[in-house]
């Protein structure tokens, strides 16, 4: 190992120490939020943000949970993200089947269109969508948000999945055609089962992306009963009624589901990132 000559034995530990220090800096906010979510306001003002909590003070978390009806926010987020993930994967599969395997005419233009749709800023759609939703009686409904994100995520899924299905082994498809299978059956009996790993990656990414969305849900979901977790937290941020530890509790409640998804889906997520470098 020649490069040990450059760094030497102490140098090698210095590199590790520097990286560990940086990692610690990245994690400090998580630690501080967690630490202080379990303190009473009095404890916070006497001990400061770095002292360990004396006991498990849950009042801040409970009070915040009840005040925003956090269980309902969780349910709204789960419902919206779950339905969007499934519906967007379905749309992506149908589109990619026609574009990647069917190779319909003009597919290049359609792919560009889908890609552009996914990169468009939501600000360039928001007002007409808001106006149309009001006309259709869908404003302030979870359905409106579900429809919009199904299309936005589906546009990305179509783009990615079309190139994956473009490389689908032709032999399998031709064999099925010779056996007299219809296109519909080839899709559900062959293409979908074989592409399942990719579809699962898309499903999970769509779920998490939709969970994390803020702008459109914030515009569309104005009543407390419909809001998602990021919207509820983002809108309440800095409210005067919140004391130091309750603010910390609210941040923790936003962190926990996100980190939980990360831990649950870690392997799929890493695979997804390595497969398509998708974001």
């Amino acid at each position: 190992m020649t490069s040990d000559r450059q760094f030497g034995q102490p140098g090698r530990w210095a590199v590790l120490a520097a990286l560990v220090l940086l990692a610690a800096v990245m994690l400090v906010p998580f630690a501080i939020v967690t630490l202080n979510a379990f303190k009473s306001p009095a404890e916070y003002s006497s001990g400061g943000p770095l002292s360990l909590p004396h006991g498990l003070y849950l009042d801040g978390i409970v009070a915040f949970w009840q005040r925003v009806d956090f269980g309902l926010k969780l349910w709204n987020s789960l419902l919206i993200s779950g339905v969007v993930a499934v519906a967007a994967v379905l749309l992506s599969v149908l589109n990619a089947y026609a574009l990647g395997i069917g190779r319909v005419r003009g597919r290049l233009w359609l792919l560009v269109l889908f890609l552009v749709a996914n990169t468009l800023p939501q600000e360039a759609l928001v007002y007409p969508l808001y106006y149309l939703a009001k006309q259709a009686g869908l404003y302030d409904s979870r359905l409106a948000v579900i429809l919009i994100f199904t299309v936005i995520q589906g546009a990305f899924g179509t783009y990615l999945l079309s190139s994956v299905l473009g490389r689908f082994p032709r032999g399998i498809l031709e064999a099925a055609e010779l056996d007299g299978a219809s296109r519909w059956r080839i899709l559900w009996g062959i293409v979908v089962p074989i592409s399942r790993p990719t579809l699962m990656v898309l499903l999970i990414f769509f779920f998490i992306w939709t969970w994390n969305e803020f702008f459109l849900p914030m515009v569309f979901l104005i009543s407390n009963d419909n809001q998602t977790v990021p919207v509820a937290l983002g809108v309440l941020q800095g409210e005067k009624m919140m004391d130091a530890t309750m603010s910390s509790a609210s941040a923790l409640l936003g962190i926990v589901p996100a980190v939980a998804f990360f831990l649950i889906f870690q392997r799929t997520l890493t695979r997804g990132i390595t497969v398509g470098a998708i974001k």
Partner: protein
Amino acid sequence: MAPPDAGAARPRGRGGYWLYLLPSLVLFLAIIVVPFLMNVATSFTRWSGVGTPTWIGLDNYTKLFEDERFWASFQHNVALIVAMAVVPTVVGLVLAAALFDYIARRFGARTASALRAAFYLPQVLPVAVAGVVWGWMLHPSYGAVNQIFGLKVNWLGDPDLALATVMAIMVWFQLGYPVVIFMAGLQRVDPSLYEAAEIDGASWWRRFWHITIPQIRPEIFVVLLTCTIAALKVFGPIFVLTRGGPGSATMVPSYFSYLNFFQKVNVGYGSAIATVLALIIVVVTFLFLRVQDRDQERDS
């Protein structure tokens, strides 16, 4: 399940596949194409959101180009591109190479992936929640940062500091993404390249510069593109942390258009801002893809 088409062992013409695109095309038209065109049309009018819009031609655009807040908002966008795309890419390259090529080999793959996970963790947060975390940490009276260091700094409320503070928060948020992508890219690289370079006595920096960077150029393009677009679109952190303020110290186009849509009810003006932003993002995307194409052609 539709019955198998008995007579036709050969697939019918390609036209049949259009049916599969139908549901998407209908939704796509209603949710993307029509609203986008409506937005462009509205940008040529004066409209408060109720009643009939008044056609005013290019007035919104001429006003836009004379509007200091608009130009300021794009300058802040450039600052955010530095914070969300440039800095994370540069630092991410060094970190990914150090983890992959140094830490993993001398301290084990587990140490490397634990460190990678630590760098990545902020990325899993909804960006609005990241804003809530830092809004609390940096609160001028009870925030943890001031308490720990015994300061009285109004990080987000001081016009001279607010943008720098937001930039720092975005670096924290964004850094893990390039690290993960670059480390994944490095696994593709043929290890014999590194071995050969080591035998030749090439230093770590030389290997980094002459092997690592050229080998993962596709990943660098993807990261720069996605992060630049994310920076141009940034809304959540601005809404949560500063609402574009103080004054317009952290105003960005997305928030500026939102402000005109829903608070000042200058819907026409808001639409013009949004249209310009959309145009810039589409142009940036195409430029990146062109450069990437050229790059790949040159290689092959």
